[in-house]
């Protein structure tokens, strides 16, 4: 169990590469050159009186087709606030009709490797976290993060979305991806990162023997001569290096008994956020299972949406 003192006392050894911004500027520039080519298909089976549900897909890095669930308030034409919901490591992307019922369009992204975005890239679970980690150009998360960034592009392309009201949230890997995506795309107005994964890789893999971080420990045991190289790659994908680049309000939720993402590492990202940050600690809660978390996340975002969301 972590205490608040443990969180404050923890100092990560992760440093930011000198060419961090240059690398990501290059990735974003490359993405801009790929047509979004989005397709939106109404799903009557999943639609309700208050939510029109669509299966969507769009193009991302390496021209991969990325799938998402898109729930839009019904009836009405908008423009609506929109929330980009980023997925956990191995969980399915959630179809969030509840947001549509609150007057908010919700896009839930199945990043590459997840069904049904796995046709051309499928390293598996376990597998994704170490796939191509020898080089920042080949690392799986270059694509995964690109898929999240393109989710912002999708929302910006939609006539029913208020482009000035785009929000982002997710838990676990989705929490880490929320920090990363919000650091890269300043169109996002506020975000909530729950139980954030992808923070402080070197410490996380040492602090725990649980997956997914243990994939990195397995990698280190199997390829000791490549560890330094891999850790250098991971600096480009560590959420603590994106946190200072976030310009909007951001809330971070941390479970103090988290056995998957060490609480200290989420806090390390939190403390690097701009002053418009908020921390919520969930005592006696483990990874992803704080009962109060979903309501807190929704309320915090709705408060930022103001009167726009009902």
């Amino acid at each position, binding site marked *: 169990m972590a205490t608040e003192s443990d969180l404050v006392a923890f100092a990560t050894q992760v440093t930011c590469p000198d060419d961090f911004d240059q690398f990501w500027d290059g990735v974003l520039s490359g993405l801009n050159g790929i047509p979004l080519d989005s397709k939106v298909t109404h799903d*009557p*089976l*999943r639609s*309700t009186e208050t939510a029109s549900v669509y299966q969507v897909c769009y193009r991302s890095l390496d021209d991969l087709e990325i799938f998402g669930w898109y729930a839009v308030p019904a009836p009405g034409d908008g423009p609506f606030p929109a929330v980009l919901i980023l997925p956990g490591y*191995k*969980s*399915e992307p*959630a*179809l969030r009709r509840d947001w549509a019922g609150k007057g908010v369009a919700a896009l839930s992204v199945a990043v590459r490797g*997840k*069904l*049904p975005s796995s046709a051309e890239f499928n390293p*598996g*679970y*376990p597998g994704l976290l170490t796939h191509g980690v020898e080089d920042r150009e080949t690392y799986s998360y270059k694509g995964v993060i690109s898929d999240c960034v393109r989710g912002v592009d999708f929302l910006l392309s939609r006539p029913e979305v208020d482009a000035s009201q785009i929000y982002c949230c997710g838990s676990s890997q989705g929490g880490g991806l929320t920090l990363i995506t919000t650091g890269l795309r300043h169109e996002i107005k506020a975000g909530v990162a729950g139980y954030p994964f992808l923070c402080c890789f070197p410490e996380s893999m040492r602090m725990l023997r*649980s*997956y997914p971080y243990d994939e990195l420990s*397995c*990698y280190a045991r*199997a390829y000791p001569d490549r560890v330094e190289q891999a850790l250098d790659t991971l600096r480009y994908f560590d959420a603590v290096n994106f946190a200072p680049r976030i310009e909007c309000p951001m809330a971070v939720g941390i*479970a103090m*008994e988290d056995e998957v993402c060490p609480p200290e590492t989420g806090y390390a990202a939190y403390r690097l956020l701009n002053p418009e940050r908020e921390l919520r600690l969930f005592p*006696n*809660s*483990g990874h*992803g*299972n*704080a*009962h109060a978390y979903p309501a807190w996340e929704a309320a915090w975002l709705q408060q930022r949406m103001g009167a726009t969301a009902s």
Partner: protein
Amino acid sequence: MTSAPSSSAAFWEQTEAQLAETPPDITLERDAFYSQPEWDVFRMHYNSSGGHRLYAWFSVPHGDGPFPALVRMPDYGSVHDIIYTPLRQHAVVMNPTYRGQRNSDVLVRAAYPGLLTDGIDSAETYTLLGAYADALRAIDILREQQQVQIGAIALTGAGLGAALALATAAHRSGIAAVAADTPMALGHPTALQPGLGYPLGELGDYLRAYPDSLETVAGITSLVDPIGFAGSVQAPVLMSAGRFDRSLCPLSFAEALAAALPDCDLRVYEGAAEGGGHEHGQVRGAWLAEKLGVSR
């Protein structure tokens, strides 16, 4: 082509008959990458009914057996975890998948949402019924594999995994304990109530689109109503439920199921589908360790 079973008893009889005529053809391959200093991890493949080739993660502690075994039945999702529990240092652990999940998806690839209603207009085509056969097959495979000698067997799982664990304990003898977290109410009339969240809400979606199918859906899913087979579960059961669960194991169902089980300790928490979360995780871990006679 087999005919559709007309009753729960006929369904289970047919399931057993189909498994009996399917040679298991077990293969075990040690995974050097994921094996640890204290235990080996294996990739296990075997056959189930309907021509499905299934996958399981399988871990064996270092040292001389026999070892107790913990089987973690798969939940409702495409991925079933690699071996994860702290008990892996002292017990054989098997995480079997069911047809349609990742690594067991040659013939059918399940969608989430989607699997809960895939083919639900007939018992012959309802894909999810096969998951129950696959759960029984997993225990048979655990007992037949030659890698390690097995002692006491405990089952665990959450959601669908909990329902599969209870079904297995009802249809296989010699199970020492079952830890069932928020068992999915599939098969019970509770699951067909309108307004439930996913995954049970998939049934509501289907019935909203096809309201005339209510009787058919109720009949087909009732083949695997946990309350129907609960009386056959001889093992002690530790069950968790969340008081506000409206998507997986509504409290009224949890209480009815607990009452139908001969030996059940139901713990109700102030939560939803996560059940008791971390708090119950501690209770469950200690309970399973005690039942298996190992330290955590």
